[in-house]
Every structure is written in structure tokens, then in C-alpha cells.
């Protein structure tokens, strides 16, 4: 169960090998989380490393195969996780791919793969998780969106548009699950320094996996349903959203 501070006892992280997932697991283990299910690509080294780290913190960890690129398998995968683990108090949607924008523009098939993982899979897993949480009458869903979806940029518009769709889906789910005991929190980080963004030039208002994890833990206690990390991105994007297109297009990437 989630306690009075929104601290969960059992957690599922889809995309359990990601840097944000690992930072979050560390912070939740310091509170009352005792069971963590890490779902990720079969045989993924980062998933195993995340599991080993969490075990060393005294958490009961299970890993489970989850292929975000195969939406047909998702409902069954989620059902199996629930059947094995019982109630899950928190489910974090931490999977995603950045994709190579140039390659995507050359090969629509590659772009479709990005869209499948970043959008379609969020929809299929999101609905399957929502169904389970409705049945158990409680829980929290944290969706890791991105500012890239807030106003989509030329530089990464395949990724950005998929995140925009994903963000919109979870915004809708927030309302669909109001008054069910299930809360949805959409987290919009800016540039996070992780292995997904390795090699990219650092950007203004960049943040870290630990900061994103801390923002998630804080949001679990509070009434906010959309969270920006860092918080300063919220006013920044309130302006960005309304910049004239000619200016927006010319902003350095």
C-alpha cells in the first residue's frame, strides 16, 4: 500500500534498466519500498545491474522480460507481472528510445519503431496497468514524458511527437482515473544526463537522474499531476510554447 506520504511498498518499473529507474529505486529503497519488479529487454545488462544494485539495498527484486517494441504482448505481460507480484502500489513508465532523427527521416520504418516504443507501447501498457489498478482500488502511475513533447522541435521531431502523444495519453488517463483511488503523475524532465543522451551536447537547464527521481518521490506526496524537472522549465516552456514559429525554428538545438 502507499502510505500517508505516498511512499509505495511494491513498485513496477517498466524500463527498469534505465538510469532514472535506478536512481528512483535507490531513493524508494531508502523509504518503505520492499518489492521492486524491474521489467526490461530480456538479457539486458543494465537491467541485471539495476537488479543487483537494488538487491544490495535489501529490496526484494524480480526482473521480468518486457519488449516495448511488441505491443501485442503487453496486456499479457502486465497480467503476468500482477499474477506473480500481487498488488503494485506504483508503476513507473520509464522506457523509451531517442532514435536517430536523421536515420528516421531516411527510413520511415525506423521512425515507426520509435513511435511504437515511445507512444504505442505507452498506450498498451498504460491501459493494461490502469485496468489492474482500478481493480485493486489504489495506486500511483508515474509516466516519464519529456519537454521534447511539449513543443516539438525540428531537431528530434520523431521522438518529440511520440512523447507528445504519450504525454497526452497520460494526461487523459489522469482524468479517467480521477476518483478511483489511482493517481497519475506526468513527469516532464528536460535534458537528463543519462546513457540515453550520452554523447549529446549538454543543454541549458539540464538535470540528472537523481534529481528526476527526487522530483518523483516528492510528487507522490503532493497534489501535483504534472511535474517539470527542473521546476524552472515550467515557466520557460510557458514562453517557448508561444514563440513565433520562425523564432522557434531558429533556436539553437
Amino acid at each position, binding site marked *: 500500500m502507499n502510505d500517508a506520504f505516498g511512499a509505495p511498498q511494491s513498485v513496477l518499473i517498466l524500463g527498469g534498466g534505465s538510469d532514472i529507474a535506478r536512481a528512483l529505486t535507490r531513493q524508494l529503497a531508502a523509504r518503505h519500498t520492499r518489492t521492486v519488479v524491474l521489467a526490461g529487454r530480456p538479457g539486458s545488462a543494465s537491467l541485471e545491474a539495476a537488479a543487483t544494485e537494488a538487491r544490495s539495498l535489501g529490496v526484494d527484486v524480480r526482473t521480468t522480460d518486457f519488449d516495448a517494441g511488441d505491443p501485442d504482448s503487453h496486456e499479457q505481460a502486465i497480467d503476468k507481472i500482477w499474477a506473480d507480484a500481487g498488488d503494485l502500489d506504483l508503476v513507473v513508465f520509464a522506457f523509451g528510445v531517442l532514435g536517430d532523427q536523421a536515420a528516421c527521416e531516411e527510413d520511415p520504418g525506423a521512425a515507426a519503431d520509435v513511435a511504437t516504443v515511445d507512444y504505442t507501447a505507452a498506450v498498451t501498457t498504460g491501459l493494461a496497468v490502469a485496468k489492474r489498478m482500478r481493480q485493486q482500488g*489504489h495506486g500511483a502511475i508515474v509516466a516519464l514524458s519529456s519537454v521534447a513533447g511539449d513543443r516539438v522541435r525540428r531537431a528530434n521531431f520523431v521522438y518529440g511527437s511520440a512523447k507528445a502523444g504519450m504525454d497526452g495519453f497520460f494526461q487523459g488517463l489522469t482524468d479517467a482515473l480521477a476518483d478511483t483511488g489511482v493517481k497519475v503523475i506526468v513527469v516532464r524532465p528536460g535534458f537528463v544526463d543519462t546513457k540515453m543522451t550520452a554523447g549529446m551536447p549538454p543543454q541549458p537547464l539540464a538535470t540528472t537522474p537523481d534529481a528526476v527521481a527526487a522530483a518523483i518521490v516528492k510528487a507522490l506526496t503532493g497534489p501535483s499531476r504534472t511535474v517539470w524537472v527542473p521546476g524552472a522549465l515550467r515557466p520557460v516552456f510557458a514562453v517557448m510554447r508561444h514563440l513565433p514559429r520562425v523564432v522557434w525554428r531558429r533556436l539553437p538545438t
Partner: protein
Amino acid sequence: MATRVLTGWGHTAPTSATVMRPRHADEINALLAQANGRGIVARGLGRSYGDAAQNAGGTVIDTTGLDAILDVDLTAGTVRAAGGLSLDTLMRVMIPRGWFVPVTPGTRYVTVGGAIAADIHGKNHHVDGSFASHVTEVVLATPCGTRVVRPDDDLFWATAGGMGLTGVIVEATIRLTPVETSLMRVDTERCADLDDVMQRMETGDAGYRYSVAWIDCLTGGRHLGRAVLTRGDHATVAELPTKRQRAPLAFDPRVRLAAPAIFPSGLVNQLTARAFNEVWYRKAPRRRAGEIQALSTFFHPLDGVGEWNRLYGARGFIQYQFAVPFTEGEVVRRTITRLSDAGIGSCLAVLKRFGPGDPGPLSFPIAGWTLALDLPVGRPDLAALLDQADEDVAAAGGRVYLAKDARLRPDLLRAMYPRLDEWRAVRDDLDPGRVLVSDLSRRLGLA
């Protein structure tokens, strides 16, 4: 039947359940028989602060439709009441007839069933013990049928403090306390610091039936734990002013105003709590003896404001209440210091001395000190601070009160309630299929 989102009085940790409100006791047995895999638990007036009377994804029986007074013996001073009867109604009916409830908490808005399930205590615990000590018989609807249990039965004591996890309390017979008047004779003292108040309670409590101290947890340093100690007893007719002697048992407390649901979280903060505490301390007389007060002023001051819990806003608040043996009074100081040092405000901190506990394995009171603190949710460091306080309390042989808990770590439960396995044995016999489930039982691994 309706699916509703429920929380405790603290407005934290909402979950949804199918709420059924039976109008006849037989319906309870039917509901227990039909319960789905997520189980069932009873809920009275929802005054438990935490998650004891909610059941995510399962069924919750709202008992307030079963609120009859079934039988009264005015000579012996006993009443047989349905489990959903509120102590408010019971007081309004019985006080004018010269009988008071044996134990009252800080609110009249609790049910008889809830009072037994939480084995509640009041300001008279050091003299009279907790609620279940005054119950002579309970009719309990369980998954294996209705049972009538008395204090010579293990199931009776597993039910007292059992947080509703042994069944639904359908009826209870309660021994009342005779009173001549509906008024209290109260002595009030201001105490300079924590040592002062604890010492005065140690030496003087025996002379009073009711005793409680309000503690200022925000003023640190030399005045740490300054307090207002109020103690008293039921006034006799002879003690009343002549005018009041004409209707000494009149009892009709009113809810003067109700708080609307518009208050933001953060309204109760260090600043406002400090201001409240200053006023509360200063308005108390340095020393006043023999003041005549209304029962409701002495016992239920917050009942004058309906839904006062809304003052804490959307995030809600928790009440942290623990008890430690008398030899471990230092834990009280350390807890107050810990919160005072962190600047975490509590408007209502209440200190009391408990008498010996009753035989209930999960009943909260043990002989010793108990401290209760209302704390707004919001400060990010509060959760970890209370985790440390739990360790301290458990190491001292103390425990937190399950009726108020919404955050205890399950692995500390056994240390705090060493007779947990005795309770489990009774429950396992009674409910092998784990039909009786609550969010509290899930969270603490009681289920």
C-alpha cells in the same frame, strides 16, 4: 452499493472500495459470505486517522445504518447498543439520565464498534483503562458465523484493538459511569517546561479521574515542552452554581461552524502553529482550580468545529501517537526535540499517562507515557524523521497506535506488538480465508 474513494480522518492515502450500508444486522453475514477476493472491513464514522477503515478494491461495510440503542438498564447502568451507534448519540441519550460513557476520546463522533475495534482510551485511562475494559459482551459477525463473546474469551480480546480484522461488531453491552451532572470541575495549570509537566503529572494524576497535558512542541531551548495541564472530575450537584443546579444533567452540545474544503495545504505551518501555540499557552490561566466546564469543552473541544481536518488542505495530515513505559520518558523528550529542531509544527501535541493495559494483544495502551502529535503532510523530511522516531519507540519497548497510523514500517510491528502471534492464532482460526482485510492490514502485513 457504490464505489467510493475513502480516506481516514487525516485525508491521506485515498483508495476506492465498494461501500455497503446495511440496515439490518443479518445483511452483514450475507456480505461476509459474498466478499470477493479483496475482502471486507467495517467502517464507522471514519475518525481513524489512517487507513484502518478502508479496503482498496474490496468491500467496506458502513455500519452507521445500524445505530440502535437496543436495551438500557438504568439501575445497573448498562446499555446494549448496535455497533454503528455513535458515542454522540449515546451521550445525548444517557447523560440526561445520569450515565456517562466509560471512556470518551477527543471526539464524540466515533461508533461503539470503532471504539472497541481500536480499544480507544481517554483522559481517564490512568484510572479506568480503555474502552474494552467496560464492555461485557460483544456480538461479532465473523466469516464463520455470528459469535457472542465475553471477556473470558480470547476472541473478545483479539477484537479489542483488533482494528476490525476479527469481524464486524454488531452489538455491544457497555457498563456506563454514573454522573450527577453534565459538567466538569477542572483544574488548569501552566507548566514551564517538559520536566515540570511530567513531574506534576507523576505526582498529581492520582488525585484526578481525568488528566491530559497540551504541549507546545515548537518553543525550544529552556522552555522546551512548556505545557498546559488540565485535570478534573465530574462535578457534583453541590459544586454547581445555584442557577445550574436546576438542570444539572442538561446536555446539548452544538457544532458552531463547519470548515469548508477550501484551505490550502501549508496553512498549518511552522509560523501559524507557533502563533497558535503561543495563544493557547497564554490564554490558559497560570493556575486555576475548581472551574466548572461543560463536558464538551473539557472532552471534545474540536467537535465544535465540523470537519476541522480540512484545515490541513489537500495533502492532509497524520497523527503520530506512541506509548512508552514510564521508565522511558526520555523518548517523549527526544521526539519533541527532534521535531522542534527540524522546525516541524504541531498545533496539537497531547501528553498523557496511561494506566496498565488490558489483555488485548493489539490493544494500544501500556502503562507509561503517551504522546500524540498532529503533523501536516508536506515537509519532505517528515517521513524519515518519523521513521527514526519509530525505531526509538520500538527500542524503548513502546508502540504506535494503529488507529492513527498511516505510515509505520511493517517490520517494526512485531517489536511494537510482541503478542502479535497470539492475535494471529485467534484470527487464523476465525478467518482462515482472510476475508477480513483493510488497507492497514495489507500495509502492515496483518492480512
